[in-house]
């Protein structure tokens, strides 16, 4: 087992300037104050906004500064084109990525790409909202799920024996997403991970309430509920590591499906765990894809976290 909690993680002050300097800073623009604030405060020689099609920004809504966008059929192609565009030797750059506005599958594939590109270390930022706009009714995806599939680069080997398939869902606010993922792997046993500690005190109850609404798809009598912190990818990865090890001890898992559909910080934790421990195994990351996403589902900025990923450790 890897102890992911040894990675550095700190909270950046909102009222002071940030001292660390980078060669490259990448953030995904979603119109929220959270991403704009972080973009302003980061010190970097080159700053790049990436524009996801899913947010449907018109040409006149683009932010100031260097922007990247492309038409791509999946996250793999998008990230490849992004790095083609950057055309730099990534291994020698000091890189910082704000994952707050990124699509979750892009976070996962981006991390894999950097890992495979001999990058040894990078910082990832995540800013917590003060509140979601509609509390427990907040919709992040603004159109229904079109497809549940594996995230590119996180597609495991197929075990033909499916007798003990396991689906671990990092459950967020949108019960439709939970239901769609659970439906897709309806043969698998399900374990639901709720965000606790949550980002704000009331968010746990809101999270639990929404998850309950997907109980039909999750199935009754076969569900376990466990907890992962909403803002700590390293504890998330550690919990996953221990949880899967325990499950494997009870009975070998035939196919393992991981579905991070809650916070971006948790998505990062899922991806880290996968890259560190589940590559070239019977494990897949699966995700419910929607055609479009709400640009800005949150109000305010509560805290900004900096996670330092050191690839040699994993």
């Amino acid at each position: 087992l890897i102890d992911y909690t040894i990675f550095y993680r700190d909270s950046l002050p909102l009222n002071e300037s940030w001292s660390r300097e980078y060669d490259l800073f990448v953030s995904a623009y979603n119109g929220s104050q959270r991403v704009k604030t972080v973009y302003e405060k980061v010190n970097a020689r080159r700053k790049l906004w990436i524009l996801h099609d899913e947010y449907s920004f018109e040409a006149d809504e683009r932010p100031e500064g260097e922007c990247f966008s492309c038409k791509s059929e999946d996250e793999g192609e998008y990230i490849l084109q992004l790095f083609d565009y950057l055309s730099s030797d990534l291994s020698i750059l000091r890189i910082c990525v704000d994952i707050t506005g990124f699509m979750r599958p892009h976070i996962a594939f981006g991390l894999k790409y950097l890992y495979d590109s001999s990058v040894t270390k990078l910082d990832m930022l995540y800013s917590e909202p003060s509140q979601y706009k509609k509390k427990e009714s907040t919709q992040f995806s603004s159109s229904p799920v079109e497809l549940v599939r594996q995230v590119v680069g996180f597609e495991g080997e197929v075990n033909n024996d499916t007798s003990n398939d396991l689906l671990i869902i990092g459950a967020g606010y949108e019960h439709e997403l939970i239901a769609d993922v659970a439906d897709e792997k309806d043969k698998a046993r399900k374990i639901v991970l709720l965000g606790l500690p949550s980002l704000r005190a009331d968010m746990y109850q809101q999270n639990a309430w929404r998850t309950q609404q997907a109980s039909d798809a999750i199935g009754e009598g076969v569900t376990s509920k466990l907890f992962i912190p909403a803002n700590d990818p390293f504890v998330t990865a550690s919990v996953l590591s221990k949880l899967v090890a325990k499950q494997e001890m009870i009975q070998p898992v035939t196919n393992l499906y991981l579905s991070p559909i809650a916070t971006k910080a948790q998505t990062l934790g899922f991806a880290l765990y996968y890259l560190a421990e589940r590559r070239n195994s019977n494990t897949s990351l699966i995700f419910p894809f929607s055609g479009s996403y709400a640009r800005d589902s949150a109000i305010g900025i509560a805290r900004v976290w900096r996670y330092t990923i050191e690839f040699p450790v994993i």
Partner: protein
Amino acid sequence: VVTASQRKNSNPFVVTKAVDLTDDQIQELWVDVVSTTDAMAELARPSSPMPTYVLGGKGSGKTHLMRYHAFELQTLRYQRDSLSLRTGIAQDGYVGMYLRCSGLNAGRFGGKRQSPELWNEVFAYYMELWLAQSLLKVLIALGAGKEDGDEKELAAVIMGQFDSEPEEIPTGLEEIVSLLSKLQKELDYQVNNCIVSGKLEPSILVTRGNLIFGIPKLITKRYLFLRDVMFVYSMDEFENLTINQQAFINTLVRERELPVTIRVGGRLYGVKTWHTNSAEEEILQNSEYELLPLDERFRAHKKKYKDFSHAIIHKRLLAAFEATMRLPDLEVHEHLTRIFDIPDHSSWRSEEFLDIVGPGGSENRRHFEILREKLNSIQPMGVRSRREIDLVVQRLSSQRFPLLEKLNTLILYQDWSNGKNVFQSSEAISFSCKEFVAREQQRGRYASALGHFKSDLIAQMLRENGRKQDYSGLQSFIDMSAGLPRALLTILKYVFDWSAFNGEEPFTNQRVSTDAQQRGVKDASDWFYENMRKAGPDGAIIQASIDRLANLFRINRFGDKPIECSLIAFSLDEHAVSQEALRVVKLAESRSFLIRVPGGQRDRNSERITMKLQLNNMLAPRWDLPIARRGAINLKPAEVNAIFDPARTDEYQLVYRDWTERTNAPFPTKKPNTKERQGVLF
């Protein structure tokens, strides 16, 4: 005796999906209603060489059926019957290999900077490796070769099916499985990483079909006990495959070679193409494959479905509370029917109607309050003064039989809408009512109106008096489920939960209250509405159009003068409606929100047979609609477009207003003909 709290924790209907059942449970809960000599029997012909596509709504029992015929379940039955595997298989005449397409994660076989043609090749090879492993594992379990003392020779013969030899030549079946597994893993690696590596260059060692069709051909010649055995690849969850991948499976169906056959299981909407890879030709129904629309068959064989439903409930109850539920077969039906409290609404004389309207004088009942208000505010022909209103109400009154009062008001509204003198009508109605009570004639307008509208009148009476609608009784639940056993189990699950919550001891010591049934049915209806939709941008469109349709039916049911009785069905001319509306109608049908009524309906004007559909009975309680279909309305093309085309919100509002006006006093003064009304509307 099991206590209420224990019962609450041991809901026998808690597992409603076959995927959540263990092999033992599948075996235990299996109900054999199909091995008879009627049209249902094809379900029980697992050894038939004809490929079959088993299609059905979510919860129609596809997976249960396919798993029941899989080798794992066959093995359990042989153990139960003390048969050896070989004897059992020889007797069954088939061996089933059940595979779920979702396990392939088929979405990864595409894109990633590779050509579609290459992906087709890779997928075909992958399927060969995948299916062949499943086949070989069954052969290993049967001791093929090992028990016959010729495993090396068998392995050599199987390896002869390969086009080129691997580095290490396997000498036993286990080793061949390991080889295939290794090849599959290598392919997995290339498929999963080609986006970064840029390479997808599988070394294809075997021609398509050489293993999955070739091996059964070899071994049936080699071993006596397999001589007449059919090898059945059962591939469930067809909807999880892409169009190209489905075309490949269709090609396998076309090109299959005996002794192999293929069963494909999928949702109603799951078939994306019937094309094959052979020059884009479609496979032909009834010559190359049979279609088994599971829930449609259940609906068509009502008696069978009822027996089947009783049997599955009895099995569940036996499994949960064996001691209290072991009953002779003959008593099962009666016992299950008795479990549920049912209000007596069968006769218009029932005293339950007096309970609904409450104590007090007839003239103060809610339906007369409403009538008075309308007469007073609208003043139709013949009624001008308060005295005349009082007299009308007095004539329609029937103190002992509130249902007849409701019928009297309905007939009055009918006459009113036809422009008749309301005051004079009330006198005639009063006479008919008294005659009916005295002689209970079966014929004539009065008796006929009661026969047609009784269900709607009771529903109105319940609603006017603040009562919940009645959907109680096992037969109601069976009717609601409309051929989807999972829907039936879900109703029972919720009813059981509510009953236990109310402190009852459901399904054993006392009857399940109507309150628990009403709440359970409502929850089940909501579950159906939320969970049949599934993902996809069209899901919300289906729900919106069903909302629109059901709201019109509700206007009709609770209107002063319903256009049709017990209305949940409609017909439409599919050639006259917009493409988008027709697309949404078909989508709603494929998701089981609408059910096709066999035979269609003959249009009164054109004599053309039109498409006839009904709202799924499961959805009826959500809008307080009837679960038994009687009347059907021929929707005009403009109405169909307004209901099913999501963009036509304004037009729908006009239709909504039109229906409200047509079914409620004061009613349109002159009934315009169809063309005129359409002109006004649109």
